[in-house]
C-alpha cells in the first residue's frame, strides 16, 4: 500500500502520532510517555496524561566496580509542555 506517499519529512512521522501515546526521551536521563497533542518545528511538545521517569545514578564513581545504584523515580502529570531543546527522540510506544 502506498501509504508512505504522505510522509516526506520526519515531522510527518510525528504527525502520525498526534493524539496517540508516545514515548519521549529527554536529556538528563528522563523519559516521558504521554498522549501527544501538539508539536512544532523546535520539537516543542504538548503532552497529556504524562508519566515521567527520572533515572538517578547514585554513587556512580564511589563503587569499585564503577556501577552505581540506579534509582528510578516516576511522576505523573495531567498536562505537560516539553521544550524542544531537551528532546532526544519521539517514538510510538512499543507494542507488546
Amino acid at each position, binding site marked *: *500500500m*502506498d*501509504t*508512505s*506517499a*504522505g*510522509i*516526506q*519529512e*520526519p*515531522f*510527518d512521522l510525528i*504527525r*502520525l*502520532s*498526534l*493524539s*496517540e*501515546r508516545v514515548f519521549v526521551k529527554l536529556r538528563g536521563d528522563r523519559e516521558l*510517555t504521554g498522549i501527544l497533542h501538539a508539536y*512544532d*518545528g*523546535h*520539537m516543542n511538545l504538548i503532552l497529556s*496524561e504524562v508519566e515521567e521517569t527520572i533515572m538517578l545514578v547514585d554513587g556512580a564513581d564511589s563503587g569499585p566496580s564503577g556501577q552505581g545504584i540506579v534509582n528510578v523515580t516516576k511522576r505523573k502529570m495531567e498536562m505537560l509542555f516539553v521544550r*524542544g531543546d531537551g528532546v532526544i527522540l519521539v517514538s*510510538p510506544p512499543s*507494542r*507488546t
Partner: protein
Amino acid sequence: MSFFGFEQNDRLQQEKQRFREGKLEQEDLAVYTWGEDSYDGLGDALQEGGDELNDETFGGTEQVGKDFDFTQQTLLIDDQLEPLLVSSDNTFKQPFAQSDLSRDTANAHGTQASSSSRPGQSLWDEKSPFSVLPRSGGTSRSPADHVRNGSVSSSNLAQSHSPSASAAPQTTSQTGVRTLQDIEAEMKAVAIAQRMQNAAVTQRQQLMQEQQHAQQPHHYQQQRSAPPRMHPQAQSPRFHQQLQQQQLIQQQQLREQQLHEQLQLQFRQQQMLEQERERMLQEAQLQEQIRERQLQELQLQEQLRLDQMERQLRSQRPDIRQHQIIQNHQHLHQRPSSDLPLPGTIPPQQLVQRRQQSPAFIDPHLQPQYQQKGQYMPQNIQLQQRLLSEMAQAEFMRDMQAVSQAEQDALQAEAMRRIMETERMEEKRRRKAAKIAHMSRYNDLMTQSDKDFITRIQVSQLVTQDPYADDFYAQVYSAIVRSRLGLQPSDERVLKFGAFGGVGLGMGQKGAGRRPSAMQKMEQQVERIVHNARQREQEKPVNHNNLQGALGKTSGRSYKAAPRQLLQVDSSNSSSHAHISKEDAIRKHGEGAAKEAAKIGAEALGVTADPDDTARRDPLSTKEALTILEYLYDLVLDIEQIRREQSGLDAEGTEAAETWNKRYSELVQQLWDDLRVMVPLETSNPHPFISLIAPSKGKKLLPRISRHLSSQQMLTVLTLLVACFSQMDIVVHASILDVPEESTQQQDLERQTQAFLGSVVQSILPVIAKAGLRLVSGLLGLLLERSDIVSVTQTRPGLAILTLFLSRVELIKQSMSTATELSELPTQDETEQCALTPQLALPFPFGTHCRRAGCRPPNTVAPTLHTETLDQPVWQFLAALALHATNEQQQALVTALREKVLENVASANKGWVADEDERRAKLGNVNLFLHALGLDSSQISI
C-alpha cells in the same frame, strides 16, 4: 498790602500814640487830618510819579479776565483777612468814628465848620469801596450784628485758620515798620515792569487817570490803595456784575473826588470867600451824591454780605466730610438758638428729602433759604450740612441695623454659603480644566494621517491568506461561545477581502462600556482601510504601474520569520501531509496533491475491491492506519472549510454553487473511499475500517464525517461495524477492563472504550433511531451470526449496541400498539418480522446474560460506586431483554438473577453500602430490571 496798610499804618500809629501817651483820641485827630493846619503834608510827600500805573499793576477798574484762577488757599486767606479787617474795623472803628466826630467838632471849632468836616468825612468814606466797606458796614449795621459777625469770623478763624490768622497781624505790623517810601518804591518797580505789558489794555484808564491825576494825584492814589487781592469781588468771574457795579460806584466816587479835590485845591489856595460859596454849592451837590452813594453802598453791602457768605459756604463745603460729629454737636451746643431744627426733631419728609440728595446737592435747594436768612445762613448751611452728613451716617447705620439680628445672620449665612459654593464651583472648574489641560498636553501631536499610517501597519500584520486557518482556534472558540450565548453562529468573524486574504476579528465582544465601541471603531477602520486598498488595487492598472515588483518583493511577513527554524527540510515532492511550518508553501499545491492522493487511494480501493482478487490481505499496520487517518483528517478539514465557504456562496450565481457542489461531492467521495468501508469483509481481519477506528482519533473522526455522509452511507458504516464487531480491539481486549489491578494497557483500553461509546455509538445512534424493525432485526441477526454473542455481550460496547437495538425494537412496538392506524407505521410485512424478533432473540442470550450478570465476581466482590455505575448498562440490557422475553424466558431470567437482585436489595436496605449514592445506585439498577418485569424492589422482603 502797603496800600492797604497805609490806612492801617495810620491806625497803628494812632494806636501806638494813644498807647504811648495814654491820651484821648482827640489828640490823635490833629495829626491825621489833612484839612487842618497841623497837617504835616505827609500825603503830599507820599505823592510820587508813576502812580497812575498802579491801576494796571494791581488791577483797576477794567473787567477782570476769566483766566483768573484763585486757588482755595488765597480764598481762605481772603476769608481770614476779611474778618480780620472786619474785626479790626470793629475794634478801631469806634475810636475812629469818635475821631471823626471829634474832627468834625474840631473842624467846626476851627476855621471851617461842618462844611470842612464834611468833605473830610466823605473823603474817608470815599476811599476805595473796599476800605469803605467795613466802616459803612459799621454804620449801617447794628452793633449786635457787628459783634456776631466778629464772633463768627473769629470762631471760623479759631476753627481752621489759626496759623494764617496769626500771620495776618504780623504782616500788618511789618508794614508798620517799613516806611511808606520803601513800599511805594517797591510797588513802583513792580508796576513799571508790568506797565509795559499792560499799557495797551489800560490805555483808556490811563487817559482818564491822567486827566484826574494832573490835579488830584493824592486822592486818586488813596482811592486806588486797595490791592487787587483784597477785592473780594475780583476774586471770581462770577462777580463781574458786581464789579461793574463797583466800577460805576467808583466812577461816581471819582467824580465826587474830583469835586472834592477841586474844593481842596481852592481851600489850599486860601481863597476863602470863593471857596465858601463854592463849597456850599458843592456840598449841596455832595449831599445829593452821598445819598445816592449810600443807596449804592447798601446794595454793595448786601452783595458783599452774600459774597462773604458764599465764600464761607464754599470754604466749608470740603470740610463737611471732615468735620466730626462731635464738633457738630459742639456747634449745636454753641448755637442752641439756631433756627435750624435739631437732628432729633427733623421731620421725616425733610429727612427723606435730604437723604436722597448728597450733601453737595443741597446747596441749590437751600439757596432761597440761604438768601432769606441772610447772615445766619453760612453757619446754618454749614450746620445743616454737618447734620446731614451725620444723619446720612446715622441713616446708613440704621439701615444696617434695621433688619433683625436673625435675618442678618441668615443673610450672612446665605452669603457665605453662596460664596463657598461659588468658590467650590470655581475650584472644581479649575481642577477640571487642569485635568483636561494635562490630558491634552500631547493633543494633535499626531495628525490623522499619522494615525492612519500606524493603524495600517498594525492591520497589515493581521491580514493573512487564510484567516480561518491562521486564527483557527480563536475562530472555533468564538463560534462556540457565540452559539452558547445564543447569537447567530453564522456571524462572520472574518473580514475577507478579495480572493487573497482577510482579517480574523476574533471573539465577539462581550460586556458593555467603551471597549465594544472601540472595537467597532477598529472594525470600521479596518474595513475602510481594506476598502481603500481594494480601490487602489483597482486603480493600479490605470496608473500604468507595471514596474511594480520588477526589482523583487520585500518580504512583508518578517514577523513570521522568528524564531528561526531548526529543521529546514526541502519539500519539493509536496503533498498534503506537510509540516505545519511548510504549510504556506504546500497550500498552493495542496489541491493537486490531494487529488493525487485520492487517485492513489482510489486505485488502492479499486485493487482491493476487485472481485476477481478476493485474496486476503494483511491488515493495515498501525502506521498505515495512522497515515490514512492523517489524510482523512486533512480531507475532513478541507470539507469543513468548503462547508464554511458555502454560506457565502449561496447567494451568488448558480455557476459558483455548482462548482462548489462538484468540489464538495468530490471531496466527500474521496473521504468515503479512504474510509475503506466498501472493502469486502473478507479482505482482512481486522477489516481496514476497523483498523482505522482502532486509534482514538479514528473513532473521533466518525462524528465529524457522519454529517457529510448520506444516511445510506452511514447505514453501510453501521452494518460494517456490526458485522465486524468482534474484530474491534475494545471487544477483543475487553476482558482487560475486568482485571482489578490498573495498568497502562487497561487505561488505554478504557480510553478507547470511552471514545467508542462517546464517538462511534453517538454517530450511529441517529441511524439506529431511524431504523425500521426489519433493519434492526437484520442487524441483530448479523451480529449474532458473525460474532460470538457471549463475548460480545460481555463487553461494554457490545452491551451498548445490543441495548440500542432492543430499545429501538421496544420503541417500535410501543408506537405500533399506541398508534396502529397511522400510515407511517410499519407495514404488515414488517410487523410479521417484528413478531419474529423476540423469537430470534430468545434462544441465545438467555443463559449467557444471566451468567454475565451473575458471574462478574470482580465487580460484585468489590461493590464500589464505580462497579455499580459500570453495572448499570448490564441492568439496562437485562431490562430491555426482559421486556421482549416471553413468560418462560422471564421466569428463567428472574431465576438466574434472583440471587443478584436479592443481594443488591439486601445490601441497600441493611446499610451494607458506603453511602447513600451507592445504595440508590444499587436499588436503581435492580428496579431497572424489576420494572421491566412489572415489579419493584420494595415488593421484595428479605
